[in-house]
């Protein structure tokens, strides 16, 4: 079945998931079901207002940042912002994943028998399923993707859980494909989190009562429901239009001014959404397009439908059973960029038409897909520049560095004096590379690259090679022009963002299989040096070049002008970390110990007692003997 190929999950498993989800209504927290090599965990939904908006949360949307230590992947790597999720949903997950729970034990058991896990749920049970899947991915899957089976997450009419960073992070890690969210056309629940708490507070408890599947009777002309529906859709429209304007970059300055007056829901669709019509299922993975569809599929075709929609917006939340049952008979289509290019938008138009999307609405959906095309094109443009990057880096590596080494001072010091023609050539290459990497940085900051780009191993490795090789030249340049005296230390005023982003990308890539974050690893290493109280050390090492191996020279330059007594801790930290940097390839030991190197010259001036106990004494034997 085409469905399985595209959604990675079979129709049978979806049916089983739905049945399990229904069974979960009666449980305290979750229902477990085994089906062959698969274990299904279905979570119980809740229909009380406190289970949508945390009562103590003062934000209009009840959101909270994800904990970085627990969810190291759920953030923007370069900029470092953590993903935002609904606070109650997260708290709910935390209760469930406590190591003392039966749930935790069952997951451990499923894992030890290498069974595939499906997390599922109806309504807010789906929200728990989404977070449980993320937890599984961070805690187990990432440690060893070859051993642990891929999880699946199947939700039915679930509310939105996380913000655009949440969706971006799933995309970057190539995890989006594990999430399949079914949405019947008018179901209000997937739209609820786009509304402000204050605007729906009054009607929410009543509507939730109606949404509860254990409540069999819905009234057709219920004014409160109409009011609720109208409010939610109005806010949905605000979010969708705002997102569209931002995406297409129109009237940027005006949009910024206007936005300080708007309260905008942070929540965005993540993973694949499957919208259903009478005879078709349409799957979409593009978060921007899904957001537009959440608004436009729930518009009325005519007056008559208009009066019915509020009722349908409740009823459709109950109609997932029918959807699952009829799934085998329905056509299945994938609405994506590829399809868009393939048939010139014709069939997409008719699918969207079936979903009740107006002509105008269709244009918004397609325009959102068009933006994805631009992102892919941007990536291609950058990839076309790879050969040039490699060429310039190779010249530095194979021509420039060896020649400088022959002069016994290394390329850092040679560049700092810049007396040779090669130094000049290197300077030109430095500027050329800066141009390329700044361009990538600009695109990445504006979200104009595909999510996967930032986490791509090839790119991260290239950026790392660039950072290790060229950042010393930037540091040399900074000190050659004495900018440290004019504007301040390199680490505070001079370090370009292109290196910071490259450093974070690298750290993420190597640390994520261990589930650790760079700050912790760094402080662990520093604490291992036993230089004193952690708090004091932290204060001393704030903004020091020891934070990153490619900033080695910046730290040397800073330390070199200061009396040893003042900077003892910093000197010892630098020496203590150096060995690790050399092994990792962050610092080139063929360079720094050369006779004419600034580092060596400075190190010689350190007090004898320090030198005798220094971990570097092996490298500096001649110097120690001489004294």
């Amino acid at each position, binding site marked *: 079945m085409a469905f399985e190929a595209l959604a990675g999950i079979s129709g049978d498993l979806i049916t089983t998931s739905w049945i399990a989800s229904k069974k979960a209504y009666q449980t305290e927290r979750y229902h477990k079901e085994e089906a062959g090599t698969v274990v299904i965990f279905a979570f119980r939904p809740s229909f009380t207002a406190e289970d949508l908006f945390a009562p103590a949360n003062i934000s209009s949307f009840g959101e909270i940042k994800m904990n970085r230590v627990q969810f190291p992947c759920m953030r923007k790597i370069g900029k470092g912002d953590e993903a935002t999720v609904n606070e109650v949903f997260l708290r709910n997950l935390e209760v469930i994943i406590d190591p003392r729970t039966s749930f935790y034990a069952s997951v451990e058991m499923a894992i030890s028998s290498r069974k595939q896990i499906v997390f599922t749920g109806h309504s807010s049970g789906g929200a728990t399923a989404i977070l449980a899947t993320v937890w599984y991915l961070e805690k187990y899957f990432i440690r060893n993707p070859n051993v642990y089976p891929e999880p699946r997450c199947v939700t039915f009419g679930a509310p939105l859980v996380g913000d655009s960073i949440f969706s971006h992070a799933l995309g970057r890690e190539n995890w989006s494909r594990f999430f399949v969210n079914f949405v019947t056309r008018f179901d209000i629940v997937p739209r609820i989190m786009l509304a402000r708490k204050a605007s729906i507070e009054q009607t929410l408890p009543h509507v939730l009562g109606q949404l509860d599947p254990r409540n069999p009777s819905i009234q057709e002309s219920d004014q409160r429901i109409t009011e609720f529906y109208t409010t939610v859709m109005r806010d949905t429209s605000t979010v969708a239009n705002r997102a569209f304007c931002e995406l297409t970059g129109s009237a940027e300055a005006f949009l910024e001014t206007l936005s300080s007056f708007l309260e905008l829901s942070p929540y965005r669709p993540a993973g694949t959404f499957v919208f259903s019509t009478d005879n078709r299922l349409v799957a979409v993975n593009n978060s921007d397009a899904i957001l537009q569809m959440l608004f436009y599929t729930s518009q009325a075709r005519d007056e008559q439908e208009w009066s019915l929609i509020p009722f349908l917006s409740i009823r459709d939340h109950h109609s997932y059973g029918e959807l699952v049952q009829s799934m085998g008979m329905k056509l299945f289509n994938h609405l994506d960029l590829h399809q868009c290019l393939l048939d010139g938008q014709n069939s997409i138009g008719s699918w969207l038409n079936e979903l009740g999307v107006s002509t105008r609405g269709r244009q918004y959906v397609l325009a959102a897909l068009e933006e994805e095309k631009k992102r892919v094109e941007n990536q291609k443009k950058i990839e076309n520049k790879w050969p040039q990057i490699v060429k310039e880096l190779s010249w530095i590596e194979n021509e420039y560095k060896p020649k400088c080494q022959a002069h016994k001072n290394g390329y850092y010091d040679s560049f700092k004096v810049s007396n040779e*023609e090669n130094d000049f050539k290197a300077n030109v290459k430095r*500027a050329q590379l800066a141009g390329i990497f700044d361009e990538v940085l600009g695109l990445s900051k504006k979200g104009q690259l595909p999510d996967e780009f930032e986490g791509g191993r090839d790119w991260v490795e290239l950026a790392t090679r660039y950072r290790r090789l060229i950042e010393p030249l930037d540091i040399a340049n900074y000190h050659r022009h004495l900018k440290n005296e004019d504007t301040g230390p390199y680490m505070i005023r001079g370090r370009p963002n292109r290196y910071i982003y490259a450093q974070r990308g690298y750290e993420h890539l190597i640390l994520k299989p261990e589930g650790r974050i760079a700050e912790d690893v760094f402080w662990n290493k520093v604490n291992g040096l036993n230089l004193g109280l952690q708090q004091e050390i932290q204060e001393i090492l704030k903004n020091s070049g020891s934070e990153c191996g490619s900033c080695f020279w910046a730290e040397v330059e800073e330390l070199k002008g200061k009396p040893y007594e003042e900077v003892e801790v910093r000197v010892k930290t630098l020496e203590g970390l150096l060995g690790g940097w050399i092994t990792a390839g962050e610092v080139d030991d063929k360079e720094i110990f050369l006779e004419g190197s600034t580092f060596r010259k400075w190190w010689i001036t350190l007090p004898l007692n320090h030198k005798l106990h220094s971990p570097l004494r092996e490298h500096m034997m001649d110097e120690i003997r001489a004294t």
Partner: protein
Amino acid sequence: MESSSSSLKCSALGKLVLSSGLLHSSWSKISEIHKSPYSNQDSGLGIKIYREEKFTLVVFVAPPIFTSSSDSTLLPGKENENPFPFLCSENNPSFSLHTPAFKLFTSAYKSLTYLKSELLQTLESEKPVIITGASLGGSVASLYTLWLLDTIDPKLKRPLCITFGSPLIGDVSLQQILENSVRNSCFLHVVAAQTRIRMDFFKPFGTFLICFDSRCVCIEDPVAVTELLNGVHDSEQVDYGQVLRRLDQSMLSMADSRLIPEAVIKGMEERAEMKTLRFDMFKKLNDMKISMAYIEWYKKKCRDVKIGYYDRFKTQLAFPSKEFDIKIKNHKIELNRYWKSVVEEVEKKPQSDISILKRRFLFSGNNYRRMIEPLDIAEYYLEGRKEYRTSGRSRQYVMLEKWFGMEPIEKERRKNRDLSDLLTFDSCFWADVEESLIVINQLNTTVGVRDDAREVLLTRKLVEFEEYVWEMIRKREVSPEIFLEKSSFMKWWKEYKKIKGFNSPPSYFTEFMNTGKYKSYGQSQ
């Protein structure tokens, strides 16, 4: 069917503005005041402040306009005659305002000043401010917002001015000034379609929300706004309460209708396209750094053969020999072209926006000026021309120097720093050297009867130059390269020494030169 993306963007923005509810909040306060029995009695300006939960609303009420007056008041750039001097740009040093609105504004100047400090406090407490008004009240609200914007820290949230069917307040100069400023984003003018707004003299700025029957669009392009607002009804007669209600009813329904004529859309897209093709100074800054690296290298190589890059460039221009020299000329052309464009862009902006120009632009621009202007001077004097300082400088140098001087950065320089890479602060230094050489030439070629008066005059010029040079040496603001063997400056010194002879009393400078102290000038001590 409209299919173009700009039409989509216009309606998305329109829907966003509508669903934000800001129009309703503003209008309900405006109509509240208009309905109250106290309004319309006074012929002056009324101001009312509402402190709402999420934002503060300031409503301006003005008497109705009886004649559709198109009187305008010209405001020159000078401070005392213009409450908006900060808006003037290099290109548009003055502009005109709608007289009735301006009169109302100045009549209430005192209370407006008080209001300003109050609103600034509000903004500093992170609470956004809406300034609004209908008809002439909206025009005064716009003026007031323009005035307020000057004092707002760019880091704070910008206020939003919402007007309903208000007459336009500024001429084409003001439009041009604002078009290049972020302030343009603070104005939202709500106007019903099919109305007419006088545009013969006054021109639109800001964003327009144009309301059709049940739909609306948001447009920034002033040409398209002009094209769309040429209806027959008087915009001041429209009941905007009703307009908003109609829009509201159809917000969630699906009805699609064509709002903007295809020709208007097409024009808008063409202009938008032109805008993207416009010069992007950020993109090319890195390329310019490469060109600067070449010239820096050139300078270094010249120094190695004991000739300053100034003199080398001058001789190579006359007898180009190496490819490298030709390349340098091309880099110079590139750099000049780039910085000329940057300066042109900046000159369109209101004066007070220039400080926003990123620091690195000011620093890079300053570096460029100090590095490249000497080469322009070399070219200039090689062509036999004179008086560079007063009649030869390109505008970009003058402006870059001016802006750099305006920046409040007091650079603390270490006294004993090595100056070998220093670029002479006064980028016109070499022009003065050339002028002094010309003077020496004139003194040496005196034929016939000696003209004492003339000689005294010329000699005084030389002494002035000496004093100027000494001042720069004393402050360590001149590059040590001027003392290189083959430099024009040393040529001047040799001649000057002869002219001065041994009769005149020694000066600090002559001593500095005669004792050879200059040889160690600029070395780190």
